[in-house]
Each structure stands twice: as C-alpha cells, then as structure tokens.
C-alpha cells in the first residue's frame, strides 16, 4: 500500500523506531498516527503513545474497523504496562470481537492475552484461566506464545504448582528464542528465577533453612502443623485457621511454634505479641484473655497449655510444628505479608487488618513503593496496593502485529 507507511512499518518491525518516526513524523493521517504511537511506545513515552493511538483510532474511517481495533488493543496494552487498570474492559472485548470477526486471529489472541494478564494482575487467576481457554488456538506468532505461557506460568505460581509453572516457562523460553526478541527472553528468565530463589524460610525446633517454591508446595501435603506467615494462618493439610484479621493471636501462635517443643515465658509472649516495653499486671491479664482466644481458634489443630513459667503448643495428630516465614523479614514485613496474597488491598483494609492507623499503613506503603516492593493502581479511594512480583507481565510492549497493513 502506501510507500512511506510501508517503509516506516518495516523500520518498526526491524526494531528501528527512530527510522519509522523519520518517515512519518510530519504526517497526521491515520496510519501515520498509529505508527508514530507505536514508535513512541517503543521509545518509552507511553503518555504520548496513548494520545497518538487514540487519535489514530479516531482518524481511521468507518470502513477501517480492523485498523481501529488494532489501535485500541495497542492503547490498552500500553495502559496495562503502565499499571492503569481502569480502562473499560468492554472496549477491549469489542476490539477483540472485531479482530476475530475479520479473521485477524493473531491480534485477537493478543487482545485475549492482555485481558488475561489484567485478570492475573487483579488476583483473579480463575478468570484469567477461563479467558486463556477462550482464545482460539491458531498457530500463534512466537511473541504471542511467550505472552501466553507467561500468563500460564503466573497462574501456576499463584496456585503453587511449580511443575506446571516450570513447564510453561520452558515453553516460553523456547518461543522467546524463536521470536528473537532479547527483552522477551530476559523477561522469561527473570520469571524463571522466581522458581530458583528461596521463596521462604522454614523454622523448626529453633533451626531455620531456606525453601524454594517447590518445597513450599510440598508443605501442603506434609503432615506437619504449619504456622504460615505468608497467609497469616495456621494449618495442617486442609484444616486451615486463618488469623489474618487477628494479628495478636497470630503473633502468639508464631512465637509458640518457633519455640516448640519448648515453652515460652509470659514475658517473652507479652513483649513479642503486644510490643510492650515493660510488663505489668494488666498485660498478664490481657495475655490470659488472648491465649484463651487462641486456644479456641486452634482447637482443631493444637492445644495451648499452661506451663510453670508460660505457655506451650501441643499439636494434635502430628509430631511436627513448622513456621513458614518470608525469606527476609524486613521492616513493614507485616504489610508485605498481607499483600503477598496477591489480592489488591486498599490501605484502609490493610490498616484494619494490621490494627494500626491508616496513616501508618500509608507511610509504610509509600516507603515500600519507593523501593519497588509494592505497587499501586487507581487513585484516591479506588487506589489499591499489591506486591509486584506477578509473573506474566512483560513490561516491554508486544503490541499488535501488522498494525498498518490495511
């Protein structure tokens, strides 16, 4: 078709966004706007890219539905990469249907992958899986295959299925090699690293060691009583006592489990769980109340018995007590612990769960965000926080293929 557009599109495909811009920088027709948008996206100016793609979508005529749908998909992908999840999902669904209806199955699949990535980012792996299943299985271009496998791996990691995750990542790696896009290969590699770096610490009888994600997975079938600081719960196989909203009870359970089979003095429990500087009689009274509550909660799993100087944990139906802890227990670990469930949390919900003020949580979140340990999306009251290592999100853009050949 158009000469300069063809030349610019070829430059983009060859990874030369500046060459593409050179050719269409001064033109404002629809394909040029789209090309400029993609070039700007590849150069990292996502705001400008979004504006250009939006104008391109408007500038394409009513007969050019496919070209317009491709612009929408590109714009949504840019939004996803910049963690703006507020875009209307209906727009993407409509674009996807248009592409599918016109036989552009590769770009329709790309749109489906974007939707699945969004769902995974929102902590909805079941829906993400359903979306993936809906995507028509045509031979996908290698870059699309990488995206797909990364989402599959992300879902598997979320569900602690390391074997499935590893298999998906292997497939992603070979597709990335085929695609020949170095950024994509690096993305797969960094995701794979999640499986090979210690994901947790295991503390038992005063000793501790690092655990890989695989070993954490094995714990689910172990006989042991596990005090899980990731989920703020105590469990043995499928019996689960969630203590997420009872931080004091959880702290007591953890201190007792770490000392097991030994007992723990009242003073140690009070200083550890109540954060009290010096212990007085009112603390002792409160400890009695809290231990009573803990005893009720843990009834199906363990007993909390009084000893001469304090309390001890006695697990039922198992000779083993483990504490599963984060690899590094850092400042604000409690905030991270809640966020590591992968769900988006509002700061007020976190404050409630942590039993602290909203302002304290806000400060902690801001500090964690500065070191990239958490991230947020949305604004004002709708703002949500989550931990970032969610695999399946190439930060680089794939962008819809042949955007400009109409």
């Amino acid at each position: 078709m158009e000469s300069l557009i063809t030349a610019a599109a070829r430059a983009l495909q060859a990874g030369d966004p500046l060459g593409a811009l050179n050719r269409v920088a001064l033109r404002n027709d629809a394909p040029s706007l789209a090309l400029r948008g993609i070039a700007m996206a590849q150069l990292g100016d996502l705001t400008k890219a979004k504006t250009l793609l939006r104008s391109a979508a408007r500038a394409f005529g009513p007969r050019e539905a496919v070209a317009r749908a491709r612009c929408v998909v590109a714009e949504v992908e840019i939004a996803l990469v910049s963690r703006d999840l507020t875009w209307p999902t209906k727009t993407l669904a409509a674009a996807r249907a248009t592409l599918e209806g016109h036989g552009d199955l590769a770009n329709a699949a790309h749109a489906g992958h974007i939707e699945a990535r969004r769902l995974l980012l929102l902590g909805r792996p079941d829906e993400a899986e359903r979306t993936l299943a809906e995507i028509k299985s045509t031979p996908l271009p290698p870059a699309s295959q990488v995206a797909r496998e990364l989402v599959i791996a992300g879902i598997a990691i979320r569900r602690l299925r390391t074997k499935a995750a590893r298999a998906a990542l292997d497939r992603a790696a070979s597709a990335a090699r085929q695609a020949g896009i170095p950024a994509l290969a690096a993305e797969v590699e960094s995701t794979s690293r999640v499986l090979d770096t210690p994901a947790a610490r295991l503390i038992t009888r005063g000793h501790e060691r690092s655990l890989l994600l695989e070993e954490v997975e094995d714990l689910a079938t172990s006989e042991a009583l596990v005090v899980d600081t990731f989920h703020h719960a105590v469990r043995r196989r499928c019996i689960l006592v969630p203590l997420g909203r009872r931080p004091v009870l959880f702290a007591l359970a953890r201190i007792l489990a770490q000392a097991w089979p030994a007992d723990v003095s009242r003073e140690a429990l009070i200083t550890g769980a109540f954060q009290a500087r010096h212990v007085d009689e009112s603390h002792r009274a409160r400890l009695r109340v809290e231990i009573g509550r803990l005893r009720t909660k843990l009834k199906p799993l363990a007993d909390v018995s009084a000893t001469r100087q304090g309390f001890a944990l006695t697990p039922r139906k198992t000779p083993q007590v483990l504490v599963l802890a984060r690899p590094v227990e850092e400042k604000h670990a409690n905030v991270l612990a809640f966020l590591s469930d992968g769900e988006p949390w509002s700061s007020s919900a976190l404050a409630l769960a942590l039993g602290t003020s909203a302002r304290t949580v806000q400060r902690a979140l801001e500090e964690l965000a500065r070191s990239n340990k958490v991230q947020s999306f949305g604004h004002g009251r709708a703002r949500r926080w989550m931990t970032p290592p969610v695999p399946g999100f190439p930060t680089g853009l794939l962008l819809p293929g042949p955007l400009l050949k109409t």
Partner: protein
Amino acid sequence: MKRSAAEIVREYGPFAGVEAVHGVTYDGTHVWFASGDRLNSVDPADGKIARSIDVAAHAGTAFDGRHLFQIAEDRIQKIDAATGKVLANIPAPGGGGDSGLAWAEGSLWVGQYRERKIHQVDPQTGKVLRTIESKRFVTGVTWVDGELWHGTWEGEDSDIRRIDPDTGNVLEQLDLPAGTMVSGLESDGGDRFFCGGGDRGNVRAVRRPKRS
C-alpha cells in the same frame, strides 16, 4: 456502470520470505512483484520465483519495456531490468503517500492512496502532468487497450475498477471476495490482470471482462 464479481483464475504464492506484496507489474513473460526490500519475478506458468533484485520496494511497480519503476519511500526509482541497477530517482507525486504505479503512453501513472487520486507524471522529471480523482483509496494502477483500471482497498473491501480518465467516473467494477485485498495491479495486455494480495503475500490472476 457494470458491476460483477471478480473471477480469480489462479493464485501464486504465498512465497517463502515474502510478508506482503506492495506492487505488481508484467514484462511480457514474467510477473514482477515488490516485497519490501526486493523485486521478484515470477514465471506465471510454474508460479516459481525466477529472479530477485535487491532494491527498496515499498509500493507500486511498473515496466516500460526496458526499465522497472519502483516506488520506495517518497521517490520513484528507475531500474535497469537486465542488470538490476538503479539508474535514476525522481520524486513521487504523493510525497510518500503513493501506492500504485503504471507505465503507459510515455507517462508514469501514480496512485495516491488515501488522497484517492491518480497522477500522470513525467518519467524524466517527476513533474505532475494531470490528476484524476477517484472515489476510493487507490492501490494499483494499470492501462490496457486505452482503458484505465485501478485497484481499491478501503478497510476490508477491495475491487478492481475501470474509470473514465477524464472525469474519474467509474465505468466498470469487479468486486473481490470479502477479505481479499488488492495491492498492486497490472494487466498482461490480454485477458488477465495480476493483483498483489497485500499481507497475504500472494499474487492473483483475475480475468479481464471481454469487450463485446
């Protein structure tokens, strides 16, 4: 205006390593097509690529009996068909918005895609001699037996139409099946048109309606 469905006689390709066909011409024995960074000649009898010239080839292609003309970016290259050497460059009238190219009556005819125009251009200087307005996005352009035909491609629809070179009025129209694109058009001087299939990367032979 006469309107009918295009009769596709034969399909060539898709060819290995060809992502899209941007322009088509015919030198009397071989069909030439532009595929981005190459011009390829295909023997219409066996459908195989006989020869390739490495040259920027982003849109229309034409042949004047000795030279190939090929649009690249915002210029028209004049190429020696025997040696493959680029002999000259003239500016393209659409400044890069050019698509189809034909040679007839000593002039080059250049389709300007989104402007829906066909320019008659002096092949020596690139000067625009006159401009014909069409109603649709223009892709390939060809002349045969004094008839001016051009391909259109707008959105998902393509057709091949004969227009009045003076008024631009459509005289005859051959509709291609939905989803079949025309990028590049050339007559073989007889009863066939060759059309580029856009990003399908193929070339089609379409029957030219008989004159009664």
